């Protein structure tokens, strides 16, 4: 290797190195193999077809828009009500177990007996109300209407059951809540493959019912009687992150899923009449939308009621306040299930009582009764009025502590109690202690308890106060002490109500501080009181305002004392209370005189105007007060702030308080004496009811528009006024004396020449007057104008730039968003009392609703396992009328439905039985009655039922349907119309018979009974059964009801003539609400209501009597007898000899009946025979031809044969001849020989 030539370099042509090198080179050229083929080969991906591109684009847009829903204003309140989770499924499927597990999962609590809804807090912003739905169809219907989420349990080892599908259908009709399936009993499957198969099968079936991809949960085996922890946890996660669609019906109606129910009937009434109508209160979270006071509600299963009274309570299960932490604190995981009796809590009307275990706490409680007893007695008569006031707030007793604001009380007190009832049984069982941990409170409680002990000294120690309550309620007849403690509390609250003035909180404080109420403050107080009363309850407001006005009037004449006494009369109970508790309650004492006294100074503000009892004057008064309350000026700064609000309140009171005021005035007048009686109501009522109902605003004291001050007051209302800069208007006007001149100047002046249309004022002389304007201001103006213009341009640009895709949809959405914000913001700063007054109770509030006149069965048969729902009704939904609906028999229902068979409908909140009439619309718009629903088609139906907005879905169940009868939902549909005039008709055929027939005219009888009836049907078209059409012409005199008619052809006497008419059908007015909640729980499933005719007949054993005509009879056919043909003699004589009968008889061989019957062939037979004859002809021809041919041949043959014969004979002859010749020759020879021989011989 020393001088060997170096090996030549071989370039690599393959292998990684070569590939890399090649790649490098290609990349350098710019055609390296890019990953993206679009880049590598862009030409291949250019637009191939414009049409196709358009199509793809179109489709993409379609898909995009399909996702849009009509945007709705988001009306969910800031603190939404708990989500209603309904656990539904057939029995023994594990519903209660699931609920228990879920509750345990969220709250670490174990509930044994679950009754009614259980409200739990599951997260920082979410609460659930879990309720179990029994297998009863009524509860299913009711709960489907209020559910937000449905957990649908299915026993996987069994498969789906009918109830499941029934429930799904119910849901579908009433708006589809979220539905989540849960499969249980999965541990029964031993075979894994079978398990998988079952799961898949059930899942797909579930999907077809709900939607593709609906969530189906699997709960595999049980551990110690509970589901597996992890699975429940997952389920809980799913529930707590779930989003919900707003449902139309639910969003448009307020409703309440009642947590608890209480009977508030006066025990005395119950004692007198055990079956008297009850007064009942219900508690629950308000859902849906705003509930207004005294609105109509429906209790499904009971009936319609008007809300007697409603109030809101502090939330028993409030969401946690601070949201800093990631997860919920243990103490915040609250549970609220009053009917399940969680933690031994019992609820009274407006208080929560906790069953105490501790010994000393219990003793303390019992001591409280005595003073309350006295108070109760004094207050007993006025119980209800105080009630109404108390409904909304909830406080405890403080004899000597200073009253707290209601919000404070509510927040701190109630929430704490909640917590305690669950978690702190040791330290916090005592309600008040937990709430306000101060010594004074304890003392107070002690005294209360002492008193109580005296009263119920005989009571067993173990009995708690609420037990006492409940017993006394039940007994009813006992002299005293229903709710001893409660009433005491009510009084306290009464006192507090008087003190509490949310709008003027600071002013009140002042009042409390200085014991001598100043005159000025009193005025303020009064208005505060009034305002408060207004917001609290209208009744009170009436009383107060009435007093006030009466006092105002009388003050002019009488002394100050009189209204005072009147006031005291009205307030008697309250004052009594004050006297009673005067020694230990100083605050109450102090304030209430303040109230009564405050009446006195008030009239100072009312001037001479007030004496004219006119509305106009009142308005001006109220407005005047805003500006003219001079006495207020000396007050502190805050008074001025208050002031504005007060004037508003005055206005409010003027509008809403005045009606009742007047009424009271009238009453007062009666009481006081004749003077008032005569003078007052006259002018007042005249103005009100009988006066001119004109919308024109009468001007009683017009401004003097010739005065300059008056002009100045409106100057800036005009476009020429002081709008942008202050300068122009004032300076200009300063120079002008004449009023109208000023306008003229301005009109044509410098600022607004561009908009002459704005100002409708007369402007004739256009004197220009620019001289007053200094230069500088003009420049400033220019500057601002330019800036303005710039800003506007920028805004426009921004709008354009940002809303690149600003479609109509987006705009709409934005608008909705704005509205939602406005909704939230409007009343946000006000306290709940005021808010409730304006907007009603808002959803999410925990409210208490009181209802009167509830049938006693409702209370007697109350079963907390059944859902109790309070559905609010919209305007005019409480009425009953005719409803037109589109209806279709459910395809799973076995039978078709018969007109006039009663059905139970579920429509809106209600379940009711009614009688539907089915009809269908003909092409000419006629609504023709149907006897039965079509099998697979929609038809219309009319019912007499509750007015429900159009578009509401409904379904019907057959009332007698029980579980064994297959699918119970008979029909589904939707409300279309609420027309009160029903136009269903059914066909009616009138039948008549001709009794005289002319050519085309016939007289027909039997169709009508009188000429008058005929006259009504003149020119009506009639028809005969054989199809001859005709027209009714005129009535005949005799017989009665007969008429002349003309036909298109001659009738026969045997024809039947009929007329087709349409007869209006009236809809039966049956509206029978299903009162399932009024029945004992054992009978609830068997509510039948009105039975169908068929059912009735079946039950009573009545057979239907068929009409005689439709019965089958044996057919008796008479033997037809024909008379012999008779030919007159003259005719016989004229007949030809051959045809004469006597000869004819001889001719006829066989008698007629022996003769063969003529056969009439059918066309087919004729064809056959024609074909046959044709064939036979052909055949015959052929045969003939054959014959002829044969004949010919035979002839030839014969000729030949003869020829042969002849030949033969000839031959034979010749042969014979030959033979004879030979013979002859032989003979000859013989003879010759003989001769010779003889001769020779």
């Amino acid at each position, binding site marked *: 290797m020393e001088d060997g030539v170096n090996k030549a370099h071989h370039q690599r042509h393959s292998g990684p190195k070569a590939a890399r090198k090649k790649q490098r080179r290609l990349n350098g050229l710019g055609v390296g193999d890019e990953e993206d083929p679009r880049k590598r080969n862009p030409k291949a991906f250019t637009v191939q077809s414009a049409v196709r591109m358009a199509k793809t684009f179109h489709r993409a847009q379609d898909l995009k828009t399909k996702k849009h829903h009509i945007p709705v204003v988001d009306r969910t309140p800031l603190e939404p009500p708990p989500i209603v989770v309904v656990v539904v499924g057939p029995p023994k499927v594990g519903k209660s177990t699931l609920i228990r597990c879920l509750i345990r999962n969220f709250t670490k609590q174990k509930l044994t007996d679950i009754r009614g809804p259980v409200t739990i807090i599951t997260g920082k912003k979410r609460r659930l109300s879990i309720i179990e739905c029994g297998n009863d169809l009524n509860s299913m219907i009711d709960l489907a209407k209020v559910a937000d989420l449905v957990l649908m349990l299915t026993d996987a080892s069994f498969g789906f059951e009918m109830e499941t599908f029934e429930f799904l259908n119910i849901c579908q009709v009433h708006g589809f809540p979220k539905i989540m399936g849960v499969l249980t009993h999965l541990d029964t499957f031993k075979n894994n493959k079978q398990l998988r198969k079952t799961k898949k099968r059930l899942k797909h079936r579930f999907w077809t019912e709900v939607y593709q991809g609906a969530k189906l949960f699997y709960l595999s085996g049980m551990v110690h009687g509970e589901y597996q922890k992890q699975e429940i946890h997952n389920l809980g996660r799913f529930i707590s992150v779930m989003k919900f669609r707003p449902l139309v019906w639910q969003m448009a109606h307020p409703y309440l899923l009642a947590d608890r129910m209480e009977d508030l009937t006066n025990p005395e009434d119950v004692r007198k009449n055990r079956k008297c109508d009850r007064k009942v209160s219900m508690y629950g979270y308000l859902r849906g939308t705003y509930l207004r006071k005294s609105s109509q509600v429906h209790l499904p299963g009971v009936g319609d009621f008007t809300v007697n009274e409603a109030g809101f309570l502090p939330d028993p299960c409030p969401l946690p306040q601070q949201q800093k932490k990631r997860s919920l604190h243990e103490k915040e995981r609250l549970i609220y299930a009053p009917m399940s009796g969680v933690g031994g809590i019992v609820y009274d009307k407006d208080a929560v009582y906790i069953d105490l275990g501790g010994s000393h706490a219990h003793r303390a409680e019992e001591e409280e009764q005595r003073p309350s007893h006295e108070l109760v007695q004094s207050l007993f008569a006025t119980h209800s009025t105080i009630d109404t006031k108390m409904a909304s707030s909830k406080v405890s007793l403080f004899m000597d502590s200073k009253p707290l604001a209601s919000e404070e009380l509510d927040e701190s007190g109630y929430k704490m109690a909640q917590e305690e009832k669950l978690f702190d049984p040791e330290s916090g069982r005592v309600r008040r202690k937990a709430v306000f941990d101060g010594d004074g409170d304890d003392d107070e409680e002690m005294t209360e308890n002492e008193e109580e002990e005296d009263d119920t000294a005989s009571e067993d120690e173990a009995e708690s106060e609420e037990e006492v309550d409940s017993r006394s309620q039940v007994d009813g007849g006992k002299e005293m002490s229903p709710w001893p403690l409660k009433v005491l509390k009510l009084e306290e609250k009464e006192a507090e109500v008087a003190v509490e003035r949310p709008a003027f909180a600071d002013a009140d404080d002042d009042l409390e501080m200085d014991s001598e109420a100043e005159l000025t403050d009193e005025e303020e107080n009064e208005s505060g009181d009034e305002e408060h009363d207004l917001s609290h309850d209208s009744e009170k407001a009436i009383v107060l305002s009435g007093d006030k006005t009466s006092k105002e009037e009388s003050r002019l004449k009488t002394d100050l004392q009189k209204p005072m006494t009147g006031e005291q009369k009205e307030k008697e109970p309250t004052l009594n209370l004050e006297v009673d508790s005067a020694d230990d309650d100083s605050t109450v004492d102090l304030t209430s005189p303040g109230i009564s006294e405050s009446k006195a100074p008030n009239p100072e503000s009312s001037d001479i105007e007030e004496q004219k009892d006119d509305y106009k004057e009142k308005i001006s008064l109220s407005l005047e007060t805003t500006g003219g309350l001079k006495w207020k000026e000396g007050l502190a700064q805050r008074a001025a702030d208050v002031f504005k609000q007060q004037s508003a309140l005055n206005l409010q009171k003027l509008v809403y308080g005045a009606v009742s005021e007047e009424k009271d005035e009238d009453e007062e007048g009666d009481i006081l004496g004749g003077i008032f009686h005569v003078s007052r109501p006259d002018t007042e009522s005249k103005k009100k009811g009988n006066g001119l109902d004109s*919308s024109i605003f009468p001007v009683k004291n017009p401004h003097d528009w010739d005065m300059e001050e008056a002009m100045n007051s409106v100057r800036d209302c005009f476009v020429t006024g002081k709008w942008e800069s202050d300068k122009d208007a004032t300076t200009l006007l300063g120079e002008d004396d004449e009023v109208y001149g000023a306008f003229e100047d301005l009109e044509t002046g410098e600022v607004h020449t561009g908009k002459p249309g*704005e100002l409708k004022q*007369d402007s004739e002389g256009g004197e220009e007057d620019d001289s007053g304007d200094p230069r500088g201001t003009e420049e400033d103006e220019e500057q601002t104008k330019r800036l303005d213009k710039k800003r506007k341009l920028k805004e426009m640009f921004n709008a354009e730039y940002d809303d690149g895709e600003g479609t109509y949809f987006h705009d709409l959405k934005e608008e909705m968003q704005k509205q939602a914000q406005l909704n939230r913001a409007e009343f946000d700063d006000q306290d709940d009392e005021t808010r409730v007054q304006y907007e009603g109770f808002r959803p999410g509030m925990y409210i208490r609703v009181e209802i009167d006149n509830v049938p006693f069965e409702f209370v007697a048969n109350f079963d907390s396992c059944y859902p109790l729902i309070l559905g609010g009704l919209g305007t005019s939904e409480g009425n009953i009328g005719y409803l037109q609906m589109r209806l279709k028999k459910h395809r799973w229902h076995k039978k078709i439905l018969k007109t006039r068979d009663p059905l139970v409908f579920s429509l809106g909140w209600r379940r009711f039985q009614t009688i539907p009439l089915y009809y269908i619309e003909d092409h000419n718009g006629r609504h023709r009655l149907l006897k039965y629903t079509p099998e697979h088609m929609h038809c219309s139906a009319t019912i007499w039922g509750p007015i429900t907005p159009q578009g509401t879905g409904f379904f019907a169940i057959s009332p007698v349907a029980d579980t064994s009868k297959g699918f119970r939902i008979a029909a589904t549909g939707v409300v279309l119309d609420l*027309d009160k005039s029903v136009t269903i008709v059914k066909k009616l055929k009138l039948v008549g018979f001709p009794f005289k027939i002319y050519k085309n005219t016939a007289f027909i009888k039997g169709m009508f009974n009188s000429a008058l009836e005929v006259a009504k049907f003149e020119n009506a078209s009639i028809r005969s059964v054989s199809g001859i059409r005709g027209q009714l012409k005129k009535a005949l005199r005799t017989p009665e009801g007969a008429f002349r008619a003309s036909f298109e052809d001659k009738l026969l006497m045997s024809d039947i003539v009929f007329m087709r008419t349409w007869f209006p059908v009236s809809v039966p007015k049956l509206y029978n609400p299903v009162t399932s909640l009024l029945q004992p729980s054992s009978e609830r499933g068997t509510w039948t209501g009105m039975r169908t005719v068929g059912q009735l007949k079946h039950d009573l054993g009545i057979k239907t009597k068929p009409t005689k005509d439709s019965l089958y009879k044996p057919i008796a056919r008479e033997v037809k007898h024909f008379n012999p043909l008779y030919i007159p003699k003259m005719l016989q004589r004229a007949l030809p000899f051959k045809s004469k009968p006597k000869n004819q008889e001889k001719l006829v061989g066989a008698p007629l009946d022996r003769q063969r019957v003529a056969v009439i062939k059918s066309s087919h037979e004729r064809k056959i025979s024609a074909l046959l004859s044709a064939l036979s002809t052909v055949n015959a021809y052929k045969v003939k031809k054959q014959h002829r041919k044969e004949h010919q041949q035979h002839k030839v043959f014969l000729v030949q044969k003869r020829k042969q014969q002849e030949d033969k004979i000839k031959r034979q002859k010749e042969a014979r001849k030959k033979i004879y010749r030979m013979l002859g020759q032989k003979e000859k020879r013989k003879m010759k020989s003989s001769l010779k021989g003889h001769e020779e011989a």
Partner: protein
Amino acid sequence: MRLSLAALSGRAVRITGIRSQELNPGLRDFEASFIRLMDKVTNGSRIEINETGTTLYYQPGILLGGKIEHDCHPQRSIGYYLEALLCLAPFMKRPLKAILKGVTNDQTDPSVDTLKVTALPLMQRFGVDGEGLELKVIRRGMAPGGGDIYIYTDHMKGANSGKSPGFGLSLVAETINGTFLSAELASNPQGQGSPVLPEDLGQNCAKLLLEEVYRGGCVDSINQSLALLYMALGQQDVSKVQIGPLSPYTIEFLRHLKSFFQIVFKIEAQPMEEQKGGDKVLMTCIGVGFSNISKTVT
């Protein structure tokens, strides 16, 4: 007015003691005529009036609409009837086409012209719109309107001017936001009272308009109730309107609204600003979410 609200809310009304204390008790003719009109636009309503006419029971039916023709009583002008119809019209089953015959202008009620220029734009603001929304004065009933340069002029002659002579004036001011304020005045009817000079009438009317401007607000005093009604019946959202001082009619109307729909307005007085006219009132309410239940859906 209560009747029309009853018709909307579907609640039955009983009015008792109608002028029972007066010399001439019972319903007036024009009220009877109004009831008849209500009967015409509804279907299935029940009206019971006792013999003396002092008690009236009205059970409303479904608002039907359609074509109706009504002879209004000459005691009140058409405006009286028209106001109620304007309230009801958007909630009818079919579009309402009403031909009202009667007095177009008088001194107690807003005239047809005023309603035309003020109420209809207001309705449009509330979304009541459509091609058919119009008011047409075919003939003048009592008096031809005399106008001025800026003002809607309508001078009818001959048969169209009606049987009795007279003249009236209605002035309308439009704000830059498109709301209208109006005032009007009509001459004394023939044979009643002292004759009025047209010049005086014009001046007085202008003063009235100034008064109206002084009151201010988005809605003029005549249409306050109409606007409030629409607000109350609107969707369940917050609606606000700023109006001038409440007229007695409006106050009465607000009370009716409360009794029929449980709607309470939040009424806030806006203090008077410097040279901006009189006090204003800010009315706020949450609608009831009223839906037209007479309409047919398919």
